[in-house]
């Protein structure tokens, strides 16, 4: 005998004769715990173009899931490096465009992990490849080609860097609508590039989807401190603005690096238990924004996008001088030089040895000039009251390669060509 689920039995019992039509409708399959979560018309078919002057995943709208993996590169010659970059490009092109997985002889390991089934859906996946300063060290055949601002991430005063979570020769940022897509892509890269890439560290995170408000605007997502994050981010649809803030150009950078972008990754632990025990008024003064709406404290009834008027608040009565938003962006002429495009995700990685939650922010930002961007802003933030509640433990600086223009091009081709000329 098939058992009726209790809720269904209750429904049937409760229905009188007049409920027959309803009862008939209830004959459909009843969801089970073991069912896959009901798929809404999934966004899995959506595709972010792989080819273009810049890599995708930088100004591309941020989907729900993000993952950064950092690798050491095993390449002892320029030929090795070229083979690695070509193979990486092939995999990234396939994974982001999607398509059927090849069938192999079943006596062999399958070509694909199978996580996404027989046909890979693009799922808005982007794969963004960036190089660390260490890649250029001890490789004389790359001498003189390191991007001008690329450097090893140095410790800031509030950092407690874990060497196992820092640096790397090459980073890959994976973003997609669903976490199985980012994990699938990472597994594919780890498998197909085992000869060249040794994984150092990996952090995955997500951002909650946010419903549009009554006026159709989508508010910024919240971080694990409960505050909206990204309110003051520059408009990533403004191409001219992105050319100024995000894309590396100009004679001070090597020719091959034009159109790339500096990537700063920071793994920032949040002391969430302590934060949750902090009075609301103090939390808001630490950020300089109201917690629920995100409006700056000088105009708490405005929206999160209201631009605070610091000139009208020279003594810091409404927004303290050491509030996070006031230090990070004082909104003066000078601060235009220090803008960057942030693309963070929240992470939750289990429990720390002290019994507290290991949660925080996988901070990712892009800028045309690493020193004028992230480094300058972080130096302004040193000593901010928020430091009591956050602790950067890892990350690194990388240079996101220029884009892959077409099927014949590959990631880093301009770098390889430049190295062959020298």
């Amino acid at each position, binding site marked *: 005998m098939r058992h009726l689920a209790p809720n269904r039995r209750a429904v049937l019992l409760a229905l009188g004769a007049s409920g027959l039509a309803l009862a008939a409708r209830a004959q459909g399959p009843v969801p089970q715990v073991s069912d896959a979560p009901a798929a809404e018309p999934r966004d899995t078919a959506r595709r972010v173009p792989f080819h273009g002057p810049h890599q995708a995943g930088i100004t591309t709208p941020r989907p729900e899931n993000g993952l950064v993996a950092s690798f*050491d590169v*095993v390449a*002892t010659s320029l030929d090795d490096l070229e083979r690695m970059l070509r193979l990486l490009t092939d995999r990234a092109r396939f994974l982001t465009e999607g398509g059927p997985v090849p069938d192999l*002889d079943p*006596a*062999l*390991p399958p070509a694909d992990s199978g996580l996404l089934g027989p046909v890979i859906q693009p799922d808005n996946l982007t794969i963004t490849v960036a190089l660390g300063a260490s890649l250029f060290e*001890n490789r004389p055949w790359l001498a003189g080609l390191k991007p001008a601002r690329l450097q090893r991430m140095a410790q800031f005063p509030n950092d407690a860097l874990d060497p196992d979570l820092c640096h790397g020769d090459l980073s890959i940022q994976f973003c997609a609508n669903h976490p199985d897509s980012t994990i699938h892509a990472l597994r594919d890269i780890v*498998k197909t590039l*085992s*000869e*060249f*890439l*040794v994984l150092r560290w990996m952090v995955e995170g997500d951002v909650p989807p946010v419903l549009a408000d009554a006026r159709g605007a989508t508010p910024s997502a919240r971080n694990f401190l409960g505050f909206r994050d990204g309110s003051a981010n520059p408009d990533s649809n403004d191409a001219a603005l992105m050319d100024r803030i995000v894309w590396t150009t100009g004679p001070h950078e090597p020719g091959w690096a034009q159109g790339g972008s500096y990537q700063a990754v920071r793994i920032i632990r949040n002391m969430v238990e302590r934060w949750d025990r902090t009075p609301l008024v103090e939390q808001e003064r630490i950020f300089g924004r109201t917690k629920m709406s995100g409006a700056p404290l000088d105009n708490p009834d405005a929206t999160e996008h209201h631009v605070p008027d610091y000139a009208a608040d020279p003594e810091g009565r409404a927004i303290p001088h050491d509030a996070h938003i006031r230090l990070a962006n004082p909104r003066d002429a000078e601060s235009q030089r220090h803008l960057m495009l942030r693309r963070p995700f929240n992470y939750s990685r289990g429990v720390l040895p002290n019994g507290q939650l290991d949660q925080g922010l996988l901070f990712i930002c892009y800028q045309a000039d690493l020193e004028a961007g992230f480094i300058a802003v972080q130096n302004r933030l040193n000593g901010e009251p928020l430091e009591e509640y956050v602790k950067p433990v890892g990350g690194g600086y990388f240079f996101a390669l220029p884009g892959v223009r077409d099927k014949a091009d590959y990631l880093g081709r301009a770098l390889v060509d430049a190295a062959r000329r020298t």
Partner: protein
Amino acid sequence: MISPFLRSTALGLALAGPALAADPSLDLVGPLSDYKIFVAENTAQLVSDAEAFTAAIKAGDLDKAKALFAPTRTSYERVEPIAELFSDLDVSIDARADDYEKAEQDPGFTGFHRIEYGLWSEGSTQGLEGHADRLLADIRELDSRITALTFPPEVVVGGAAVLMEEVAATKISGEEDRYSRTDLWDFDANFEGAEKIYTLFRPLIADGEADFVAKVDGNFQAVREVLAKYETPEGGFVSYEELTDSDRNILSAKVNTLAEDLATLRGKLGLG
């Protein structure tokens, strides 16, 4: 000259045949017999090395025991691809402290690594006599089993890949010989043992798989070149702690790629 022992093993293989699993393809018989001889050579060597090693422990000669620890292990590490064929002995000969709830203090912790812990961490042969007797008895038992042991081709061929997986998962990080830091001796023997299998079966696929063979050959060669940098004039290896990050990365990449490629060897040979 071939030892009397080896002659009798080879003879046993040729005549009795129980060494081979039911109905292997004729092509596999040659490499399997050759591999069995390789194993028998190594377990015979292991017995004589273990006799000297355990004698040094029982004589209370700490320096000699420490000097003989790594070279004695190499014959064992070379046959590790087929350790699943004697898994009971593998546990008592080669288990690590983290396989036991009470780690080093666990009464179940025996074998090479228990002795290694005593020699290096406790700095003494005292209290190791029982472990030495047990190790030698286990090793003699292992050696005595080889002649009658069946070598299923899929286990032998698969063993090369399995050992590479183990090196990638729990050896490259320097966990195996954590008290003595003699890990590089083990790496060398493990790669040699896996390569032996690959080399014996390679002629069966070389014609149709030229790219595969070139890639695997190249990766074994790359491993040998890295390890050669750490050899001592006496024929041994320096401490694991001297392995540079960059060389460890090369070994790690090569061992993962070897695991990836050797995992296809069973399928390429038509073994289930």
